């Protein structure tokens, strides 16, 4: 039988036809368009076959709810942590296993407990408590312990405000900038971080929040446990280990993604990590990190993309690294850096 004798049922059985519908390529597109030109009377059969292929579906669709999804992910990640790669040495892998087992077991209990104790509405009750505010200037980082034992590492130019004692039903802190939180578990009192656009509710333990004023993008990245993030319009995202949420304030989107641990939380150990970042953004980060002002000439292309990783390096070394790949010329002053493109300056 030839294509010109085909009915729609023949077409949907034909591998080459199906390929065209499901994986169109230059080649099959050309063939079928050409064939249709020569067989215009077959247009109807072709359309019908295409429609049929696209319309076949399950009569019953089943979906796991968000809670089951997160619970399973937790179990799988925990199982993975208990099964490290075989090629690690035996003694080392054993100690890793015990370490992870205790940590993970603990985390699981905490997260389940927080779930069970999740009350419908718990409004913070206003009480006259002294508020404490900590602020880090550019170039500085600060480690602090909150009254409940929660450990916070503040990145530069960040601020956190918290009560001297957490007396309310919820542990609420106000915050902007970037910080790594290692929250003291307390299923009775949820830990809540309020930033300009996000409310982050902690169900597990440690995670990173990045929400500088004026930033177009806010991020929460979870390294352990569970975190619930609530946007301004009430949309909620439940995050578990290895997941992050990215709030884009311009596009007003909130989406889930994965993250690179060094990229997002490396700063707390003194690591600067740039992956395909525009130079303009690299310089802004360096300004905050080293408390310098960076000036550059018009011909420096701030949109050029840069990648690099620096652990506890001086500004001098980092700039040397950047100039090595970009050809830019840096002059470092006391509190400022001047950057030129390194090309001949025109007389104009």
């Amino acid at each position, binding site marked *: 039988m030839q294509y010109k004798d085909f009915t729609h*049922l023949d077409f949907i*059985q034909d591998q080459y036809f199906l390929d065209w519908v*499901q994986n169109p390529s230059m080649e099959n597109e050309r063939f079928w368009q050409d064939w249709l030109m020569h067989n215009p009377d077959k247009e*109807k059969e072709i*359309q*019908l076959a*295409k*429609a*049929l292929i*696209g*319309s*076949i*579906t*399950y*009569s*019953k*669709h*089943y*979906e*796991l709810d968000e809670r*089951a*999804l997160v619970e*399973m*992910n937790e179990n*799988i*990640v925990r*199982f*993975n942590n208990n099964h*490290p*790669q075989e090629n690690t040495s035996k003694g080392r892998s054993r100690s890793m296993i015990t370490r992870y087992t205790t940590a993970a077991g603990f985390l699981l209990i905490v997260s389940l407990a927080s779930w069970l104790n999740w009350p419908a509405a718990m409004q913070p009750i206003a009480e006259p408590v002294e508020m404490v505010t900590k602020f880090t200037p550019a170039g500085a980082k600060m480690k602090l312990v909150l009254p409940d034992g929660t450990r916070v590492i503040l990145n530069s130019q960040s601020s956190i405000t918290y009560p001297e004692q957490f007396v309310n039903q919820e542990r609420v802190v106000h915050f902007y900038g970037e910080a790594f939180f290692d929250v003291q578990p307390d299923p009775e009192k949820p830990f809540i971080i309020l930033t300009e656009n996000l409310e982050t509710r902690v169900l597990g333990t440690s995670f990173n929040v990045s929400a500088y004023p004026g930033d*177009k*993008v806010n991020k929460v990245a979870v390294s352990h446990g569970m975190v619930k993030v609530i946007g301004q319009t009430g949309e909620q995202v439940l995050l578990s*280990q*290895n997941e*992050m949420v*990215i709030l*884009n304030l*311009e596009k007003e989107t909130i989406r889930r*993604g*994965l*993250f*690179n641990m060094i*990229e997002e939380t490396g700063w707390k150990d003194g690591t600067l990590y740039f*992956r*395909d*970042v*525009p130079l*303009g*953004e690299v310089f*802004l980060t360096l*300004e905050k990190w080293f408390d310098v*002002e960076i*000036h*550059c*000439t*018009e011909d420096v292309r*701030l*949109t050029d*993309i840069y990648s690099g990783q620096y652990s506890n390096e001086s500004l001098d070394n980092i700039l040397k690294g950047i100039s090595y790949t970009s050809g830019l010329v840096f002059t470092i002053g006391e509190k400022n850096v*001047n950057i030129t493109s390194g090309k001949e300056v025109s007389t104009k």
Partner: protein
Amino acid sequence: MKTLRQPSKSESAIISQSPYLHKSLQGELPDLWEKFQGGNSSALTALYRQYVQQLYNYGRQFAEHAIVQDCIQDVFYDLIRKRENLKSVQNVKAFLFACLRHRVIKQLKKLEKQQSNVLVRLRGGFGVDLVEVPFEDREVMVQEEIDKLKAACNQLTDRQREAVLLYYYEKLSYKELTTVMQLGKISSARILMHRAMQSLRKILCH
């Protein structure tokens, strides 16, 4: 000289699409599997997120919620345990479907043996539906024709309906279909589909 404190409009536009944002998972799929084999736990979570709903929907055609959830978890545990030996996996989705199907059916058999008077296997799984797709010529596919074909599809056997859905909806190839449904030879998959189509024709002609 200009200072960087206030980036110009065009610059801030670029900064707002900062590549700091992790690229979407889909974009990274090709090497996810290798990353997972290399022990990257983010890749494991990404794989899980990518396939869990598809797996769940497929599994639920056979069995009830609790069984499917347990089996999916076991499939991922197996992946982790055997990750070094999975070098030859070509289509991750087909592989995961095959693993899940195997586990679910094994579990169903076990349960049926234990409690022979209780029916655990779901009846009427793999129901076929035809959704209306927007296409240029509305007259081509009239509702009557859709209904007729839908009814015909649902008169096929369980296995034929499963094959139809895996082939057309899940977009598996004959080779992958062979793996998932444990048919042994590719020719068996072809025959299964061919029989399904023959039955469809027969039903439609009457």
